[in-house]
């Protein structure tokens, strides 16, 4: 059984007891515990079940590589699934639940999958579910979805109770990893004067060195770490961050790191996590190494752990994972675990060293302590179901004949170490196979390259394949000094710390234990614990022709779990290489991609949630619309009133009332969102002639003209009224959505094509509030405000005047998008609200109503005015819309002119704009197609046109629509069928698109 030791635990504070619950049961831990160490301290060996076979699983590791101990943490609005128990700090009253089991952790129905495992071979999904096809959707998928998956998603009704934040940081040298290598690199770079960020994922500096009894500069590693930190903290150019994991490395020195600020104190009120978005000149990768498991039958059972993890729990947390531990190893390092356990008073009945000659000084030290070392020995099998009862011992190079059975409850394994090369690989750093140490390490000759073509990542220490402290410190010092120098730091990096190292004997890789194990045993040797991928699966994949490591990964799901192959990768590809009978470098490795470990969605979103999820654009009159109870419509990021329903009024009734009131008396519209671009300069007229299809240079001062803009491909991209404010100065109105886009369009042409033209533009959209006063009483309302002569003679249709209107600084445009007598009045934005109120007061006696976007749309449709985005979709040219009159034939050129002369653009079969009136008076469905007999090559029904705008017109008293129809203008009076979603058809008569006041008398009074 696992238990807290009476003494030890350098990371825990035994005076601070924390209570927590696991699956509803109260347990006790100490401050400084991880969830994993606290669970082990409470004899909780079984922590979850595997993904595919639901096999019982225990804690294997002590860091980010942990594949099994994923738990649900918290409850309600703070519940989060798949939290790695080995890297999550314990906090008081933590609620922990195990995952992937039903009905209980101890008894799981899904484990029946395990009994059927020979029916679930590699590639099972691909093989089984191809036929019959309907079975996939209706039978297999629902069953698999129910059984598969790890943690459950948070409840749909909950909202994450925490807040998250981003931070942008810039530095010369960013060092990932705060072990002795990272600290040494930071010292070198910091002393030299570079701007340094040193980020450590865990809550502790120093990494493994203090656990592994390293001696640095003649002192215990922990003492040196403290001294290094003191020196670094005193350097103003060095930023130190604990609990900050470098998650991803991207192009041009862009590095993302996740800082866990309040995970361990959820109620503290600060942002729970922070995403650091760093731009660094040089990245130093000092991420250490991860120990590899050994592949023996039953190696996935709870109680089988990494040897390094066992001693971490003993030394760091004062927890012994078992009362009696058998060590099995192919290298010297695991002897440290044996010695640590022995020092802690725990039983180590045997050390199995697969090497026939055993190890070096550490083996001798173990023997000196009286520990039994069996060389050339391995594990043949593990007895026990959801815990370890004994290890059956065999010849490591044999077939698995059991020579002895040793009782134990933990088996601590070490298959050697693999450098953590993930960050190196994220932006393309390549790896090289190190035959002597049996691992892939970064290939310095094929390093990641920055924007300037220079190497921008340097790997240091154990991550660079150095396993002894002396080499680690030298390498890290050189890396830090080099990074700083390359960034222009001129100070002295000082000297590397000094250390000695125990003499070791080399590792002897053993990828399958025992080497000649039977097929039955290989089917119980797990490579990927989370995804249940076994040695036999990889060998089967090889037999079935999967030679590429990438294909094998996807076929078997090896390394595809949330741990992303941190434990399984090397073992898996070694087995694959063996099966393919080729050396490991020839097989190669899969490529690590960001993130290093999963990052929660809230952290990625950062501040973009709730009120700041998206910028919401408000006009200067927004608050008044809100008070009036506006029914809102999103228009881009703007919020515009769709209509203003009164008490007891439906949306439809409100729209109808707004239209009728406007047509019979007067209405007012907040048109502030319309784009307003000033174009000025000696070449402004020439420029406007190029931008618009019609002639703008001939416009007189004080006059307005409706214009169309096309892309260079001839398609209609925007429209609006152009006003000539003064000689050489134009005001171009754009659509609401076009303001930024058209301004950019103008600037692009000015800056790239006509850079020698003397024209300046400015987007002044937000400087003004613009209010349309519309209807037969519009003039009467504005005249009440006084100050300007707005009579038909003084300000005829399509004219502009500037003055003081009711004391407001007004630009009055006599333009109409409704067909009524209409003025659009622009005032400085700060005066907008006051002007709106003044118009409302003046209009009260006429029953003035504010109207929204829907009334605006219906009224323009009644007049047959097009709307960009309704009548246009990027494929429509002005000629399709009957707008030939707005295309100048006199001008030598304008954007789109040449394109519009192409044969396809002048094809008489192009669909063209018509009005549509349903025979039964109903409203045509939006987007409906005009169908015709026959089918196309794909068997789809033929179409001859489509609806572009469709409304109920309260003015006409029926459904009206506009649409594009083949030969449309020549088919007036014809009846055409339009489809409905339910498959039926509606008949509509082809009519003129101008339904209301075709002579235009009303707007011109």
């Amino acid at each position, binding site marked *: 059984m696992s238990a807290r030791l009476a003494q030890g635990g350098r990371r825990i504070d035994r005076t601070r007891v924390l209570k927590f619950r696991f699956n509803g049961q109260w347990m006790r831990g100490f401050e400084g515990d991880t969830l994993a160490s606290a669970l082990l301290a409470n004899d909780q060996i079984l922590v979850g079940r595997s993904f595919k076979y639901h096999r019982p699983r225990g804690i294997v590791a002590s860091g980010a590589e942990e594949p099994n101990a994923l738990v649900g943490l918290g409850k309600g609005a703070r519940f989060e699934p798949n939290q790695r128990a080995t890297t999550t700090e314990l906090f008081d009253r933590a609620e922990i639940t195990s995952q992937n089991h039903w009905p209980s952790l101890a008894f799981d129905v899904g484990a029946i999958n395990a009994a059927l495992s020979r029916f679930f071979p590699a590639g099972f999904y691909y093989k089984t579910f191809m036929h019959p096809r309907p079975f996939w959707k209706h039978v297999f998928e629902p069953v698999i979805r129910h059984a598969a998956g790890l943690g459950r998603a948070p409840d749909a009704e909950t909202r994450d109770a925490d*807040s998250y934040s981003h931070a*942008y940081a810039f530095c010369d040298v960013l060092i990932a990893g705060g072990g002795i290598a990272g600290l040494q690199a930071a010292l070198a770079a910091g002393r030299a004067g570079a*701007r340094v960020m040193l980020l450590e994922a865990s809550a502790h500096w120093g990494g493994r060195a203090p656990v592994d009894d390293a001696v640095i500069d003649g002192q215990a590693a922990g003492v040196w770490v403290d001294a290094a930190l003191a020196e670094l903290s005193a350097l103003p150019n060095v930023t130190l961050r604990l609990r900050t994991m470098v998650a991803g490395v991207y192009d041009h020195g862009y590095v993302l790191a996740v800082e866990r600020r309040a995970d361990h104190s959820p109620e503290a009120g600060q942002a729970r996590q922070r995403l650091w978005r760093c731009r660094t000149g040089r990245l130093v990768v000092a991420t250490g190494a991860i120990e590899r498991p050994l592949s023996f039958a039953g190696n996935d059972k709870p109680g089988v752990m990494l040897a390094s993890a066992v001693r971490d729990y003993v030394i760091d947390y004062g927890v012994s994972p078992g009362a009696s531990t058998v060590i099995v190893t192919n290298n010297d390092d695991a002897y440290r675990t044996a010695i640590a356990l022995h020092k802690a008073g725990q039983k180590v009945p045997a050390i199995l060293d697969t090497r026939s000659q055993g190890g070096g000084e550490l083996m001798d030290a173990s023997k000196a302590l009286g520990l039994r070392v069996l060389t050339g020995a391995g594990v043949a099998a593990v007895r026990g179901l959801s815990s370890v009862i004994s290890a059956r011992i065999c010849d490591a190079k044999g077939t698995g004949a059991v020579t002895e059975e040793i009782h134990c409850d933990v088996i601590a394994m070490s298959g050697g170490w693999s450098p953590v090369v993930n960050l190196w690989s994220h932006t393309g750093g390549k790896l090289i196979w190190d035959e002597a140490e049996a691992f892939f390490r970064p290939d310095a000759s094929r390093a990641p390259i920055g924007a300037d073509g220079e190497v921008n990542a340097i790997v240091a220490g154990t991550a660079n394949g150095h396993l002894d402290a002396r080499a680690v410190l030298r390498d890290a010092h050189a890396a830090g000094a080099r990074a700083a120098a390359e960034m222009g730091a001129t100070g002295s990096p000082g000297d590397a710390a000094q250390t000695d190292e125990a003499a070791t004997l080399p590792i002897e890789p053993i990828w399958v234990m025992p080497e000649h194990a039977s097929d039955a045993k290989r089917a119980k040797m797990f490579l990927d614990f989370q995804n249940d991928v076994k040695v036999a699966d990889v060998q089967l994949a090889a037999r079935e022709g999967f030679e590429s490591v990438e294909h094998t990964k996807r076929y078997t799901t090896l390394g595809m779990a949330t741990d992303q192959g941190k434990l399984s990768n090397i073992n898996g590809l070694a087995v694959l290489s063996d099966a393919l009978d080729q050396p490991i470098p020839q097989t190669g490795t899969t490529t690590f991609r960001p993130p290093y470990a999963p990052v929660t969605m809230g952290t990625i979103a950062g501040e*973009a949630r709730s009120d700041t999820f998206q910028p919401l654009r408000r006009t*200067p009159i927004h608050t008044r619309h809100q008070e009036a109870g506006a029914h809102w419509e999103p228009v881009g990021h703007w919020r515009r009133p769709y209509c203003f329903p009164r008490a007891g009024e439906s949306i439809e009734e409100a729209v109808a009332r707004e239209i009728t009131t406007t047509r019979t008396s007067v209405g007012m519209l907040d048109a502030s969102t319309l784009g307003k671009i000033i174009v000025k300069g000696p070449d402004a007229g020439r420029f406007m002639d190029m931008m618009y299809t019609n002639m703008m240079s001939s416009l007189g001062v004080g006059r307005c003209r409706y214009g169309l803009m096309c892309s260079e491909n001839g398609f209609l991209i925007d429209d609006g009224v152009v006003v000539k404010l003064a000689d050489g100065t134009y005001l171009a109105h754009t659509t609401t959505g076009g303001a930024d886009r058209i301004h950019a369009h103008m600037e692009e042409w000015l800056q790239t094509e006509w850079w020698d033209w003397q024209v*300046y533009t*400015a987007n002044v959209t937000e*400087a*003004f509030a613009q209010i349309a006063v519309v209807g037969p009483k519009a003039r009467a309302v504005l005249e009440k405000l006084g100050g300007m002569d707005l009579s038909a003679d003084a300000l005829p249709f399509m004219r502009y005047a500037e003055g003081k209107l009711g004391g407001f600084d007004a630009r009055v445009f006599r333009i109409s998008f409704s067909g009524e007598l209409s003025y659009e009045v622009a005032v400085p*934005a700060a005066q907008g609200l006051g002007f709106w109120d003044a118009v409302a007061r003046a209009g009260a006696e006429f029953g003035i109503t504010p109207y929204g976007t829907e009334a605006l749309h219906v009224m323009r449709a009644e007049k047959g005015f097009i709307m960009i985005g309704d009548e246009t979709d990027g494929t429509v040219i002005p000629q399709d819309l009957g707008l030939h009159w707005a295309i100048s034939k006199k001008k030598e050129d304008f954007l789109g002119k040449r394109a519009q002369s192409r044969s396809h653009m002048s094809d008489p079969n192009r669909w063209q704009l018509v009005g549509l009136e349903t025979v039964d008076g109903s409203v045509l469905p939006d987007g409906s197609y005009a169908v015709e007999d026959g089918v196309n090559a794909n068997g789809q029904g033929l179409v001859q046109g489509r609806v572009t705008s469709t409304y109920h017109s309260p003015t006409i008293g029926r459904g009206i629509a506009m649409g594009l129809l083949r030969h449309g203008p020549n088919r007036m009076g014809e009846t055409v069928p339009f489809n409905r979603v339910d498959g039926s058809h509606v008949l509509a008569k082809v009519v003129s698109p101008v339904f209301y006041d075709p002579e235009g008398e009303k707007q011109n009074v």
Partner: protein
Amino acid sequence: MSEAAAVTRAGPQGMVSLRGLPEALSGPVRAVTGFDLPGQRSITGGFGGGAAWMSPDEFMLFCPHGAAALLVAELTASLGTTHHLALDVSDARAGFAIDGPACRDVLAKLAPVDLSQDAFGEGQIRRTRLAQVAAAFWMAGPELIQLVAFNSVAVYVEDLLRQAAQDGPLGFYSRT
């Protein structure tokens, strides 16, 4: 939770957008406003009176709200036939101030800009983004940042800045 810096909404500001070639503008601008035309990514003065570099041929002049129209008229008269564009854009943008020792840290949560003393000292201006919207800001004092963003998103910007301030100092630019 102590705030890292105080965020306040500046009152109405006078702002004039001025486009033209710097060599043609500098004399008239100095004559009318008394300010030298600032160099690349620089600003002289700030709210109430100042001149900011916005792009190689664009500047922003600050004056009291209500004085911009007169400033435009004076500039237009002074520049005569010189090709330029001078506009009163006072109401297009909202102003903010971030005041306190951690003002750089507050802004660093929202803008992808190197805000270190060396890169962004007093008299420096940046046009960039604040989370999802455009903004411009400058160091108006040793511990004071002034900022403008478009009026339509003023509420969003204020929410962003207050959140960032409430979340406490980063301890990155301001070491405590």
